[in-house]
């Protein structure tokens, strides 16, 4: 009796297990082969990603983790030449502007198909643009961010939009119309958000049906089932195991991808990514901590340093601290900063001192400009002239964040603060978590001075200086409160509308000089190159200044 009682649960459990076993079927493809392809390369390239993709429709994304995945499966009319920030033909073989820069004729590549078998042609291009233009209120308020910032408006306010229409001339000729000539066009079409996707799949998956629900956005089915023309296609997103698997598109129009599969393994913790690389369970990962670069190299890995395409600056708010209204004070601050030492001691190898508000990889960069030298004596005398000796300054930095342009905000702040103190400035230190008051504080103008930066989206001076000072009414540099703010914004708009590249670049070079010598709305600090690390077995990764690496040429040795 006693034994039966004890045995009952065991028997029950066994019975339940047996019943369950009867219901569950293995769904494995028979003969699933691991890494058993012939030859001396593996058939999977495993990449350690820092975060999960938001959605798989890049039109509704702004983050690098999403774009890293969609870039492998999608292409735009305009592409980026590997290893540079220059545009090159992708789905369009060539393009030509009209004399006034308002009509662009694109000649499309022939014989390209989406992975659902439908053809890529002029009608598909126009369908894509009309789809992006025709967004509802929910999508326009947030998810379709890249269209908002580059095109300005959607169909509901068609007059304010840069995009003015698309016309399919014949099977492989498309004309795109824009409201005015701008330096950003057609370069902006290289943005991942503007990739060409299958009209059929978008119709079936109700691609534009973004809704606000409660305090979040609900995305349509298509957002998780993208169909495009790239060298890979999405196989599956295994959320439970935090992996995204891509498989080669065997019908790709160009050179087929060299490795059959790409797996993105999502590992939020940076030191865990490093350990995974060491253990050999991933082949590469993004943004290794600069502190680890030497260690990674001595383990035989390749640390690939991308040309810097970003800027770190110290923002200044003259409305909060009236002393900053005087150009001499702002110049004094810049003379006081020992940026050479900062770059050598606190920033990764290859970081440089900023001479202007854009890195040298951007067209319109002024090579003649010299960095303000480190000159504490001059800083002191300028402060004296301005009657600002011993001024106090509330200088903020963010915690709980690391950005490519600012790997360690606290250390950078420490160094800059002690430089300012050396010339007699009283610095009040404020620190707040990045998304715990810091970004809001900058937007609301709470600090006298703060650290922030920007990573460029594409090769365009307007994407840097235009973003910073182009919007006269509201910008982080508070130029509305200055005598030059209006003039600067107007000049930037004028430069942006010059059709001829040579003339346009010259205009930006002049503006960069004026910004640094006459206005100095903030203090440019440095450009830091972000890195990417790959194991010694990996070949064919080309580091991109835009962090836009394409993996179809990658092979992984056994």
């Amino acid at each position, binding site marked *: 009796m006693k034994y039966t009682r004890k045995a009952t649960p065991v028997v029950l459990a066994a019975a339940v297990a047996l019943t*369950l*076993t009867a219901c*569950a*079927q*293995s769904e*494995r493809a028979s003969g*699933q082969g*691991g890494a058993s392809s012939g030859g001396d390369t593996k058939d*999977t390239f*495993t990449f350690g990603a820092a975060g*999960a993709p938001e*959605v798989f429709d890049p039109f509704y994304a*702004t983050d690098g983790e999403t774009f890293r995945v969609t870039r492998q499966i999608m292409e735009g009319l305009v592409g980026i030449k590997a290893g540079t920030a220059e545009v090159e033909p992708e789905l369009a073989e060539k393009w030509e502007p009209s004399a006034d820069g308002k009509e662009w004729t694109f000649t499309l590549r022939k014989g390209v198909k989406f992975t659902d078998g439908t053809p890529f042609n002029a009608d598909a291009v126009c369908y894509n643009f009309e789809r992006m233009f025709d967004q509802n*209120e*929910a999508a326009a*308020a*947030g998810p379709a*961010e890249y269209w908002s*910032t580059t095109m300005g408006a959607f169909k509901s306010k068609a007059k304010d939009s840069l995009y003015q229409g698309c016309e399919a001339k014949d099977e492989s000729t498309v004309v795109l119309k824009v409201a005015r000539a701008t330096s950003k066009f057609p370069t902006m079409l290289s943005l991942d958000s503007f990739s060409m996707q299958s009209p059929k799949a978008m119709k079936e998956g109700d691609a534009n049906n973004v809704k*606000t*629900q*409660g*305090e*979040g*956005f*609900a*995305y349509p089915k298509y*957002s998780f089932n993208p169909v495009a023309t790239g060298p890979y296609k999405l196989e599956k997103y*295994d*959320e*439970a*195991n*935090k992996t995204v698997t891509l498989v080669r598109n065997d019908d790709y129009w160009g050179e087929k991808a060299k490795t059959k*599969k790409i*797996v993105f*393994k*999502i*590992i*939020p*913790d940076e*030191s*865990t990514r490093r*350990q*995974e690389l*060491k*253990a050999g*369970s991933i082949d590469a990962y993004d943004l290794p901590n600069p502190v680890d670069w030497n260690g990674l190299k001595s383990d035989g890995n390749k640390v690939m340093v991308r040309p810097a395409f970003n800027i770190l600056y110290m923002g200044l708010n003259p409305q909060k601290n009236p002393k900053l209204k005087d150009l001499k004070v702002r110049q004094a601050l810049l003379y006081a900063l020992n940026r050479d030492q900062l770059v050598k001691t606190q920033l990764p190898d290859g970081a440089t001192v900023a001479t202007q508000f854009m890195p040298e990889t951007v067209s319109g960069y002024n090579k003649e400009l010299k960095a303000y030298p480190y000159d504490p004596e001059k800083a002191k005398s300028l402060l004296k002239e301005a009657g600002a000796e011993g001024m106090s300054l509330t200088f903020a930095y963010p915690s709980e964040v690391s*950005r490519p342009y600012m790997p360690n905000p606290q250390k950078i702040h420490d160094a800059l603060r002690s430089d300012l103190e050396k010339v007699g400035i009283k610095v009040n230190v404020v620190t*707040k*978590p*990045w*998304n*715990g*008051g810091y*970004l*809001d504080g900058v*937007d609301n103008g709470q600090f006298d001075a703060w650290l922030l*930066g*920007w990573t460029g989206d594409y090769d365009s001076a307007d994407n840097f200086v235009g973003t910073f000072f182009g919007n006269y009414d*509201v910008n982080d540099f508070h130029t509305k409160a200055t005598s030059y703010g209006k003039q600067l914004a107007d000049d930037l708009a004028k430069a942006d509308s010059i059709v001829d590249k040579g003339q346009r670049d010259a205009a930006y070079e002049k503006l960069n000089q004026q910004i640094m010598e006459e206005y100095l709305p903030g203090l440019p600090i440095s450009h830091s190159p972000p890195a990417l690390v790959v194991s010694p077995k990996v070949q064919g990764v080309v580091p991109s200044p835009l962090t836009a690496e394409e993996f179809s040429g990658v092979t992984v040795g056994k």
Partner: protein
Amino acid sequence: MLRFIVRRLLQMVGVVIVLSLLVFIWLRSLPGGTVSAMLGDRATPESTARLTKQLGLDQPLWVQYGRFVKRVLSGDFGLSTGVLPGRDALDLFLSRMPATIELSILALIIAVAAGIPLGYLAARRRASTLDNLSIVGSLVGVAVPVFFLAFVLKYIFAIQLGVLPVSGRQSTGLDATRVTGFFVLDGILTREWDASWDAFKHLILPALALSSIPFAVIFRITRASVLEVMDEDYVRTAESKGLATSTIRSRHILRNALLPVITTIGLQTGGLLVGAVLTERVFSLGGVGDALATAFTLRDYAVLQVLILAAAVTFVLVNLVVDILYAVIDPRVRTR
């Protein structure tokens, strides 16, 4: 007994209602927010205002709470804005739960399987080498931060010896079938034994790291409790009656000594949930703890609300089970 259970469940409903209000207000009073998390350094004052309005976050708090309650009553707990944008927060919780349960169960098994026998032996051989060693071990278990322990374990077993995986729930490329979301169980159900074994191997290191604190606590309570019971009159009586040592140990000492231990195990569940946040993070195990950490940095309100309320419910339920177990072990509780 039934009345007792019903009363406790009703109390739980009250707790959840009050807590939901507190959590709602607390989350929104934190600096930063969903909108600045979504826009990051691309934010402009314009885009921030537009998005805040679209999501209804510009409304007074009581209006927002009213809407929240109304939606919850119709079964809608809101959508994630950061962890997995667009996903229903409750679904997200349910899909993340299996990983955390697998991890917690294994951690608890390790803690109990090591803590109780060691505690008992240490008490029986007080001041012996075993006793001293175990005490030092349990102190280390409490004192060493989980992430450091995790680092050491990974370094030895994953990198130097290469016998266990560094992180994750399952190796990539296994193509395992998903049934319940419990990877170990799924492998058994579908007879994909390799998948099951692989998932189990992924659990060992995180479970060891997570078990360190509950192990230490269980060990110390067991030891203290056994020492106390050994001195009781009824143990002496049993000995003088000439009962077999094994009977005395199992029936008189262990059974009585285990009462406080059981309560402790119940209380440790709360600690396990806290520990899971860190452990899942460093082992990149996509469970509830990992979701909680991500949701917090991204101010994913809907997900945070569901996770915190679910943690409260779990805590109450586990302690209810503990109280019932208590009654099973100690007949006196039943009659009360």
